[in-house]
């Protein structure tokens, strides 16, 4: 379907996107996850045709889009702050794209009604968009792109301006709408929860490059790099130095002690590697860490304890602050 190849883009000599390539398959939702400034919105604008890439190509169903202007791409774009036309009411906003396509009156009316129905806004037809709440405005924006039945949907932080409960509701609606319509989608966000909930596939963007790509569960299980592990907040990430090869494992020395680590990668003695210790992994591995408990926080179904050396873990029952403890954990290798 959508094929992005070797996109480069810079502003005033400052690189924003560097060699970005990926695919979006039929009915698939791809999430671009990245901190602000990682280039994800720029990438979206380039795909939408609102900006030109310095080099690289974008094609849809095998057809190159580089000379297709934005208004002929037939890609629906949903903005973070909705971008509803303040001079038009709800149904006029939803009908806008249909009028631009010069559809007959009765079809416009029918599609407007359908789209509003889909986003649960029936009865809002004649309301002014400026009178709506943030959540309602975003639903109108969604209905506006759905009405045009685009070949591809793109969301630029669509829930960023909404509060938490509203976000969850709308997230679920979005998922079911994407599922129903089977339109391929690119979903840009900096919120990993949102990304993991929406995505069939996640692309993590950092400094204008894709640093990890995969199914949510796969990315979660194998972050593959210290950056991704830290960005996703998977746990304690620290450096170690390879000391020896032991049978199928590697002996690694770190500031928190020596560990035996199962790792498929080939290392040499003296290599620096990043290690990950997930806070849930207490009792799940054979390596031992120890320290004095410096802080204990109650978190609903668990206690988060922090050691004086900075490591943190989740435990079902709390030790005392000041107590010296020893836990067995699983230590993973991150290259």
């Amino acid at each position, binding site marked *: 379907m959508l094929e992005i190849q070797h996109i480069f883009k810079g502003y005033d000599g400052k690189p924003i996107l560097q060699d970005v390539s990926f695919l979006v398959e039929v009915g698939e939702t791809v999430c671009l996850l990245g901190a602000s400034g990682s280039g994800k919105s720029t990438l979206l604008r380039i795909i939408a045709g609102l900006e030109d890439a310095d080099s690289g190509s974008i094609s849809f169903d095998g057809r190159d889009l580089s000379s297709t202007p934005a208004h002929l791409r037939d890609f629906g*774009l949903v903005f973070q702050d909705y971008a509803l036309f303040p*001079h038009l009411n709800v149904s006029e906003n939803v009908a*806008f794209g249909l009028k631009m396509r010069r559809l007959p009156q009765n079809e416009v009316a029918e599609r407007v009604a359908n789209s509003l129905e889909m986003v649960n806004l029936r009865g809002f037809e004649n309301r002014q968009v400026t009178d709506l709440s943030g959540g309602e405005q975003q639903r109108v924006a969604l209905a506006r792109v759905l009405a045009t039945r685009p070949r591809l949907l793109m969301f630029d932080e669509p829930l960023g301006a909404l509060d938490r409960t509203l976000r969850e509701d709308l997230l679920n609606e979005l998922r079911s709408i994407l599922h129903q319509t089977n339109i391929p989608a690119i979903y840009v966000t900096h919120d990993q929860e949102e990304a993991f909930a929406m995505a069939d596939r996640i692309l993590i963007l950092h400094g204008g490059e894709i640093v990890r790509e995969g199914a949510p569960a796969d990315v979660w299980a194998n972050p593959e790099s210290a950056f991704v592990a830290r960005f996703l907040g998977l746990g304690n990430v620290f450096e170690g130095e390879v000391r020896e090869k032991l049978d199928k494992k590697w002996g690694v020395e770190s500031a928190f002690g020596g560990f035996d680590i199962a790792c498929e990668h080939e290392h040499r003695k003296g290599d620096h590697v990043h290690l990950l210790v997930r806070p849930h992994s207490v009792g799940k591995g054979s390596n031992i860490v120890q320290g004095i408990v410096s802080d204990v926080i109650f978190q609903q179904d668990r206690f988060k304890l922090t050691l004086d050396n900075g490591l943190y873990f989740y435990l079902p029952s709390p030790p005392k602050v000041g107590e010296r403890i020893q836990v067995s954990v699983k230590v993973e290798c991150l290259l």
Partner: protein
Amino acid sequence: METGKQVSQGVHAGVSMVVPVSLSARSRILLWILPLSFLIIAFFHPLSRILALTFEPQALTTEHIQLAAHVLLFTFYQAILSTLLTLILGLPAAYLFARYNFHGKSLLRALTAVPFMLPTVVVAAGFSALLGPRGLIHTIFPLSTFQFIGTLSAILLAHVFYNTTIIIRVVGNALSSLDPKLEAAARSLGADSPRVWWHVTLPLLRPALLASTLLVFLFDFTSFGVILLLGGSQFATLEVEIYLRVLRLPDLPLAALLSVIQLVCTILFSILYSRVATRSTIQTNPRSAQSNLRQPKTIREKIALACFIFLLTSFFLLPLSALPFRSFFRVEADRGDRGEVQYGFTTDYYSELFINRRGSIFYVPPIRATVNSLAYAGGTVLFSLLLGFPAAFALARPTRLERILDPLIMLPLGSSAVMLGLGFILSYGAWLTSPLLVPFAHTLVALPFVIRTLQPAIASIPQRLRQAAASLGASPLEVWKNIDLPILRRATLAAGTFAFTISLGEFGATLLISRPEYPTIPVAIERFLSQPGGLNYGQAMAMATILMSLTVASILLIERVRIPGSGEF
């Protein structure tokens, strides 16, 4: 200064009462006494005399009505034409400033705003210095036969020169505060550029477009100095005809009738304007202007941009620079010598201002006009601040009383200067010799501006600020000294400079009521320009240059001290 003392007591009463959240009814009445009395004496009484005269039988003759209809028609004609031309230049310029980044942009924007703040006589003198029969173009190309002064084109060009900045400011601001995502959304929904423009951009700009067009029309409709000085009396608009019927072909009932027509028209346009202006704020979330800006990309775009910037720069710079240049540039034969015209640098036009020549058109050295102007301006500053402060204090926390009084206070803004002069003549003709009459008339013109500058400053001091200061240990006196005063000092300076500038440049009313031996600078310039001779012309240029310098200095001062967002009308 008996009155001055009373007024200043009034101000102090207002000041001490401002700390509590609301003013008592009694202190409100105290605050209003002086401004209202002044308005009744200086505006409503003269207005009633004009109205009374209008309904006398000798005013409403068929002949008068026919003439009035003719004049009204021409006033509309030239105003509509001027407004259209202003739009033709102003809209691309607004687009230029709103969407493009280029070197010297802020400088060019400031340049386009200068004419609007200059006195009409200076603008007229500037165009004359450039395009007039003794102007620079004719000096450089002595054989050119084109005539500029005394044509409709001169009037129209000067109006465009004056008012383009309104379009640039109002439409340009609307354009640059437009959320660029709206246009992006429209494009991704399938609209090509013309349709984005037609269906999204234009509808969102419509209120700003309407408001600025109406404002320009209003200024063109009531224009006086430019038309009289550049067009001459054959281009009689309502304003010019009123002036003619007061001073040149006296027919006061006709002048009164024309004044009433003028007043009704301007009030109608003002109401229409304020309706449109309140609607021009439908913008939901204005963006930072930065995201809308772009650089020209193609060669064609670059060339078009450069040409347009060059056109704008020359259009606004040439008349403004021709004036001071011409005031130092000698284009005449030696005194008493009918021979060769001489060219070269001279300071004669300035030194001549200090000499009281026999047979000159003044009874005093012309430089006295500068002294008179400064004295009148000083008086205007004093009066308008003394009257403006109590009114602004009351208006800063409006009750129903203020909502009724506010439009009354602003009414003189809608009436023409020439009409104010006529009202003064009708009501206080016997006191025309009093030197107080001119600053009173100027105060009437300046008062709305002064109040509108002070009022938001006073209202903007949040009660929390005073409470915070008090809770930090400041006594009421210290609160006033450290919170209110520093904020109001800037506003007072700005308001005073406004009044000063308005008085310096006021032309219409002064022309009617100033005594011949006490001319102001604009009146002196008008007299010099209407007399033959290179020396008179040169002195007009010198005088206008002095006035321009004084005004520009004042504008710079206002810009420095102005609180952003204040002084909106």
